[in-house]
């Protein structure tokens, strides 16, 4: 490599909040007191919280220092598989910060919130167009919340068509949220093995699918980055036995404008607006997990629904077969504004997004296949999965490779997932990375492959240039210290 991006910079130490400050300081401009103190029963009065008192500058420096210990998409390539860490456009932040949106109370009378209702109505329409599924709810606050809502809809559908079904088929490549969401709906997950090609076999599905089974949850493209080519046939098998097909759209970034989700046989699909539609990940949320459904499942969608009559938008609570409310209000509206801004900025170029995301992943796959073991040697979608099978011989693990990548200035890929690949390294570059940036990443991870043979101890010791080195996770779990 010519010039390594990763280096040590000016990094400050920063104590915990309560290790600084002095009682009586404040960082808040207290509003004028224009009323007299009112009496309060002493039995109700408490001492108030034991928070440290700091000045405005002290708090500014505190969080500025902390932010410098973080790696974000703006810091560099963040190829975290299945998370779609694409660029978060700044104009989206501007739109979401408009006072008319941030200051709006959710229970405003409809005539005083037409703009927000129109935005939601439009976004539902765009997501329907992108997926091919005609009815949409924006209420779920995250992908897993969308999964839960989708499985509630499947559960409600079965209850209204002959009764509860107790099982659901879930591939071994699925995210852990799939079985956890199904369980919350009182269904028992039945695992299905993927075949030697890394995808589902219709025959295996046919064997397991019965009248006790509510349906199947399929992530497509799956977590190996492979398109489930038999999805149509699998959907027919499931539908023939009265089941429904749940689509996990976590990987939708690969197939926008390319796959018609309804034509593929999917009945319910969740989207992750914080993945596919560029809204920031926020260090772990807030996300947004809208779900899109077929016409026959529309009556089961959460309430209220945004409806348009003439030029006027309203919230309609009247849907007797609805699963109910999944969120106190309408979901993460601020995230919806950002996603809508992204779609309006891209238009039909969303297809180009998917093409370039898939191009980037296949390019990485081809350029690394001679030095890392490729788990499934097939054309991939938006991500590719390698393993540490070659490096293992030198006692170098996926974890070591990941930690060494930090010293080269890159965020590591998703590691040890999916579970079906031992020592998995799951790389998702996204379309917003240029060829130059991807080439630099390839150089780095190829260089690490060489080091694993020549100087494995460097990898075992990595990272050394970060704020902290490898942390003792066993100690953290054995003697939990969850507050200071």
């Amino acid at each position, binding site marked *: 490599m010519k010039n390594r991006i990763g280096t040590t910079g000016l990094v400050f130490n920063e104590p915990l909040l309560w290790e600084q400050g002095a009682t009586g300081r404040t960082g808040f401009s207290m509003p004028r007191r224009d009323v007299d103190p009112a009496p309060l029963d002493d039995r109700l009065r408490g001492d108030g919280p034991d928070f440290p008192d700091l000045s405005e500058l002290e708090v500014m420096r505190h969080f500025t220092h902390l932010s410098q210990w973080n790696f974000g998409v703006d810091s560099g390539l963040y190829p975290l598989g299945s998370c779609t860490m694409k660029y978060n456009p700044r104009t989206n932040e501007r739109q979401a910060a408009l006072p008319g949106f941030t200051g709006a109370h959710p229970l405003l009378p409809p005539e005083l919130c037409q703009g927000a209702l129109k935005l939601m109505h439009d976004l539902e329409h765009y997501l329907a167009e992108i997926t091919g599924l005609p009815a949409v709810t924006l209420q779920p606050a995250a992908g897993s919340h969308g999964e839960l809502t989708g499985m509630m809809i499947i559960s409600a559908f079965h209850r209204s068509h002959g009764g509860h079904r107790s099982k659901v088929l879930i591939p071994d490549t699925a995210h852990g949220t799939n079985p956890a969401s199904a369980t919350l709906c009182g269904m028992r997950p039945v695992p299905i093995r993927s075949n030697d090609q890394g995808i589902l076999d219709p025959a295996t599905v046919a064997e397991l699918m019965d009248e006790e089974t509510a349906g199947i949850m399929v992530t497509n493209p799956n977590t190996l980055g492979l398109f489930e080519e038999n999805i149509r046939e699998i959907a027919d098998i499931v539908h023939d036995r009265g089941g429904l097909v749940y689509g996990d759209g976590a990987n939708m970034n690969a197939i926008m404008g390319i796959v018609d989700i309804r034509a593929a046989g999917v009945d319910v699909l969740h989207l992750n607006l914080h993945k596919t539609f560029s809204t920031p990940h926020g260090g772990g949320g807030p996300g947004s997990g809208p779900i899109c459904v077929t016409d026959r499942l529309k009556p089961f969608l959460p309430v209220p629904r945004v409806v348009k009559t003439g030029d006027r938008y309203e919230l309609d609570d009247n849907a007797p077969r609805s699963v109910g409310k999944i969120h106190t209000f309408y979901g993460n509206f601020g995230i919806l504004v950002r996603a809508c801004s992204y779609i309006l900025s891209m238009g039909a*170029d969303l297809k180009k997004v998917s093409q370039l995301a898939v191009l980037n992943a296949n390019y990485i796959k081809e350029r690394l296949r001679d030095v890392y073991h490729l788990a499934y040697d097939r054309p991939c979608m938006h991500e590719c999965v390698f393993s540490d099978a070659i490096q293992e011989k030198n006692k170098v693990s996926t974890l070591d490779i990941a930690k060494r990548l930090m010293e080269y200035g890159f965020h590591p890929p998703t590691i040890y997932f999916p579970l079906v690949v031992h020592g998995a390294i799951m790389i998702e570059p996204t379309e917003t990375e240029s060829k130059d940036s991807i080439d630099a990443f390839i150089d780095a991870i190829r260089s690490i492959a060489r080091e694993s043979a020549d100087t494995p101890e460097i990898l075992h010791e990595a990272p050394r240039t970060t704020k902290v080195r490898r942390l003792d996770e066993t100690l953290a*779990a054995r003697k939990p210290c969850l507050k200071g």
Partner: protein
Amino acid sequence: MRYLPHTREDIDAMLKVIGMDNLDDLFKTIPRDCCSLVDLNLPAPLSEWELDTHMNQLAGTMAVSPEYKIFLGAGSYDHFIPEAVRQLLLRSEIFTAYTPYQPEISQGTLQTIYEYQTLITRLLGMDVANASMYEGGSALAEALLMAIRITRRKKVAISTAIHPLYRRVVRTYFTPTGYEVVELPFGRDGRTDLSGLGSPGEFAAVAVQSPNFFGCIEDLERVGNAAHSDPKTLFITCFSEPLAFGLLKNPGSFDADIVCGEGQSLGIPRAFGGPGLGIFSAKQKYVRSMPGRLVGQTVDKDGRRGFVLTLSTREQHIRRERATSNICSNQGLCATAATMYMAFLGGTGFRELAALNYDKAEYLKGELKKAGCTLPFDSPTFNEFVVRFPGGADATCKQLLEKKIIAGLPLAKYYSDLADCALVTVTETCTRADMDLLVKEVTS
């Protein structure tokens, strides 16, 4: 397109490495019967400036202060947010990062969440708090499900003075599994009436909200004692206005087992109802049954203090169908905002601001009473209360809209026996002049 960096030459060079002729070849594993047959029918892409115009126009239709005087709370509160919170949240190392799976390069997020957990436990008087849930309603649903897991009972008792929309979320979560929700009525004082509770022996949990939906401060000691008269039953309290604990005794001091609620008041804009912040805390002994992520302190290889995600064997990515919840991403950035807000206020500021909210609400209450309005409940309240306007709730609220005053939330839709009442909320953003105007208008 400015978000897509590939030149024609880049694409050709990359395709050549892959051994393909064009971009369509990348998708040849997708069967034809799954493919879109037509191009996406979306509006033509807008330039940044066109988008600004479009969004300005949508946002411009919304009724917000200062143009409107707003006395509407009911789970979504108008509090001043320091500009410094907004500015800090714009640091892209904070908002463009994801879940801190790689702790060595995520210490900023991890220390912030550890500080958040700590400040929340101090605010609520609880042992442990998680890294956040989605929002108040689903946090309460998850708390009740946690009690069901711990006690292996299938029935919970919840107060009808809990936010009606939270209760609807709870019902949605309970429907597929058939767990039963028994609703406890409220009494003439606006607080939960426990007389119908009987022996709590059959219940996994007894849950109330304090301050409750009517703004009334519940007698948590009495509810706690009633719940704990069966040693297995969990006592759950929830809230929609955490600022109240700057003035009132915290729920932990009443021996609550789980305390959860909505943290939007802590530096997060109302944003038409979301994103908010689901706060979730419990006693230490229940930590391994909790949903959601937890950050813990540990040391690195060189013995330096550091933070990691911990106790993750409760979670879906490890435990799959046996996980304590399906929650994965939560409201990280909102928890970060809340941490900053609590840090700027400090303990002194938090107490002062809480007292100001209480005093202002008491002022308005007194003035409304003097002007001939009645208050159906006589329990102490924090910063919102139920009032009966002389001209009726719906009519008065509608009339005042013309004067750009949103006088409160008419309760007919939520409580048929309070059909003539409205819930009125006062925070530090309401001036005495605003309140005097409201009094004048509702009684004129």
